[in-house]
């Protein structure tokens, strides 16, 4: 159970505090409700580029990192399809420095041509390092594009095309900031060796005076139901063939989300999982095989990827996986198998919540989804899943017309 206190400032900023006195440190996490799904299709990669610019200094503070390092702090951030999340850790007695830094960059960034130019280059190198210069780096972007034809999940966080980053202008950057970076679009969470009253006062002091900004309501095109199987092939200079499959699944808040997550665990979490045991070890058909959910807030994807081994073809590999999915749809799971993945989920939750920083991120994420207290009933959500629900959900998910399949071939 993660206890927390919460207030909402007049300007709309939600502030949550969880006290953990086992650490001398504190975490401050700010989650902005903006991700790559909020981008203009012609300006993709912007949310992430923006994350980089957030470290280029703010209106009153020329350097973000240096003052934080001076008080023994460290920080980082990430951008997803759904959110942009910033976090820092520092000795808890120095937490006001965190408020000072975070509030100033929410107030206004020090927009400069130089900072934009440098971060454009940095992000272009990141694009290369993570996607273009990595074997199979363009596979997931490709299969996203196949699965989503209208929803902005069709492009990856890094962007659809490197030219979108190359051509970003300071005007566009500013506009993006004022449209999305606002109190009423953010959740602030403090955890660690902190006190709620102290945090609420600091929040009021540093974030209270920042004016309210109009944040446009999100109105994204929803993906129509897929009606037929999508199949594509591509060829690259990679050492071995690889197979990618994606099935549409529910959004983050639907009950089906939890069931799909457990199905992915049954299939591939741990060395006792079905796909690993049967296809990697027993039949030696794959050298790698994974099933996982994308975890997106809007309707997401159930993904499977594998590399066939031992001379097995992509067709044979695909058939073997479909066969396993079919079996799950027909026979469901044994109660022992279901018990196992639930136990594993619960234990992992205990390990995860040993970290004050993880707790900060978790609370921010659930509050952003609508209600931080949901973090405390996750285990129950998973506990309640029955073998029948597993089977029903599997039957709904794993149909040919709901699937996108990509053969990623090694150039001979």
């Amino acid at each position, binding site marked *: 159970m993660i206890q927390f206190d919460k207030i909402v400032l007049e300007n709309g900023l939600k502030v949550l505090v969880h006290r953990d006195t086992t650490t*001398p*440190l504190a975490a401050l996490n700010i989650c902005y409700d903006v991700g790559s799904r909020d981008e203009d299709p012609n300006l993709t990669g912007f949310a992430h580029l923006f994350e980089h610019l957030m470290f280029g200094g703010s209106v009153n*503070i020329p*350097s973000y*990192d*240096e003052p934080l*390092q*001076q*008080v*023994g*702090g*460290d*920080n980082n951030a990430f951008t997803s399809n759904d959110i942009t999340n910033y976090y820092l850790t520092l*000795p808890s007695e*120095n937490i*006001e*420095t965190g*408020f*000072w830094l975070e509030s100033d960059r929410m107030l206004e960034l020090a927009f400069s041509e130089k900072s934009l*130019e*440098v971060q454009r*280059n*940095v*992000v272009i*190198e990141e694009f*290369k390092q993570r996607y273009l*210069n*990595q*074997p*199979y780096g363009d596979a997931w972007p490709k299969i996203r594009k196949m699965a989503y034809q209208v929803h902005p999940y069709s492009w990856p966080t890094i962007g659809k095309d490197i030219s979108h980053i190359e051509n970003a202008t300071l005007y566009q950057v500013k506009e993006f900031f004022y449209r999305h970076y606002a109190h009423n679009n953010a959740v602030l969470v403090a955890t660690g060796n902190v006190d709620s009253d102290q945090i609420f*006062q600091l929040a*009021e*002091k*540093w974030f*209270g*005076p920042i004016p309210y900004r109009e944040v446009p309501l999100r109105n994204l095109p929803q993906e129509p139901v897929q009606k037929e199987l999508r199949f594509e092939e591509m060829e690259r*200079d*990679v*050492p071995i063939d690889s197979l990618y499959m994606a099935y549409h699944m529910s959004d983050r808040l639907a009950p089906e989300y939890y069931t799909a997550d457990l199905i992915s665990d049954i299939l591939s979490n*741990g060395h*006792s999982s079905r796909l690993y*045991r049967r296809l*990697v*070890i027993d039949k*030696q058909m794959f*050298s*790698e095989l994974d099933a996982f959910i994308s975890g997106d807030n809007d309707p997401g994807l159930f993904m499977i990827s594998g*590399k066939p*081994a*031992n001379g097995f073809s992509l067709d044979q590999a695909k058939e073997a996986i479909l066969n396993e999915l079919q079996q799950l749809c027909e026979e469901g799971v044994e109660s*022992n198998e279901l*018990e*196992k993945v639930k136990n*594993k*989920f619960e*234990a*992992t939750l*205990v*390990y995860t919540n*040993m970290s004050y920083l993880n707790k900060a991120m978790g609370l921010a994420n659930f509050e952003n989804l609508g209600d931080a207290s949901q973090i405390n009933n996750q285990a129950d959500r998973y506990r309640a899943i029955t073998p029948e629900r597993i089977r029903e959900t599997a039957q709904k998910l794993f149909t040919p017309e709901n699937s996108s399949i990509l053969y990623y071939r090694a150039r001979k």
Partner: protein
Amino acid sequence: MKQDKPNRTIAPEFREITDIPFLLPEKRELSNGIPLYTIHAGTEEVCKIDFIFDAGMWYEQHELNALLANLMLNEGTNTLSASNLAGIFDFHGAYLQLSTDQHHAYLSVITLNRHLSKIIETLASIIHESTFPQHEFESLIIKKKNRFLVEAEKVKVISQKRFTEVLFGKEHPYALTAWPNDYDKINLDDLKNFARTHYKAERCRILASGIIRPELYSLLEKHFGSNDWKSPSLLPESEFEIHPSSRHFHLFEKKEALQSAIRVGCHAVNKLHPDFQGLLVLNTILGGYFGSRLMSNIREDKGYTYGIYSMIISLKKAGYFFIASEVGKDSCQAALDEIQFELKRLRTEPVPTDELNTVRSYMLGEMLREFDGPFAQAASFRALLEYDLNNDFYTNLIHTIKEITSEQLMELSNRYFKEENIYEVVAGSK
């Protein structure tokens, strides 16, 4: 509770970090002499146990044997099949991690305390009565080889491996010289023999952290305390000579790569040497944190790379230093020049007081993080075990961080980062 507008141009007051609260591990011995270290801390009924064996690459006769022997331990025992083993860990929500480094092989498990008995019993079966079955061996080879085939395509991996080869010479165990085809030469009997001679009581240390329940001691004593698994005779300790390359620049071409991976570095010293702690400070200034000189110059000013960092590596019998980055191939030479420029600057100009103070604060904060929670404390302690050092090392480090002067740092730069000591390795194109 409206307040006056805060003054945003002045940083809030803050306190310097004065000390780092770390626990001394408690040490005891099992009846057969195996040292058992425990760090009792935390609030969750969770325990992490590391079994540390002197069974790393240093001791192997053939490439990859230490690594694969370690992984095969968990692939079947006299009483439990690979599938049973996997089922036990998964069902109880326990994670077993097998890993190997230059001198050691590890079996690390994290488990809820309520399953301690089952998990330790299972670990005993893995360590004492592993059977190394043929079928699982084949699956493992397929898996590892194919993964390695993919890894070996990455410029970062190529530069990393080649750099150690340049520094130590092909024959030295610190050179990471294995390539995918080496998997074709593995002999299962060699692995078995390696495990039978190296996973022995005299070569074992145990480190447990988290909430330590009394039954942990009795369980470990019961399953690991007997003399039955002592070696009949001690293995001789091999020694190897270091043969650095005579050339200081090495290019490993991969023409189609969009980025080149750079490794620049030199020999240094390990944790036993009095210069080591000062080198850690010097390294932080150069490339050990986000505000470092390399990041500020090569990423934040020039935009040549997504990231650049440097590290001091301490190994039992040697130490070395390196800078690593992946840069756009057209910026490769420019990045190398900037790296040399930064090294030269360290040799010729004293580090300004403000910068040094920032690094002092950052490093102390980092130490707080490295000692936060039972597992972090255990990891920090584990990093000293092979040198027979104790937490005095960290007490001294705190002292060095607070007291080292710009002059001392410049001296260190001139001792270690001399131009003629530096090797440059590039994978990609230039």
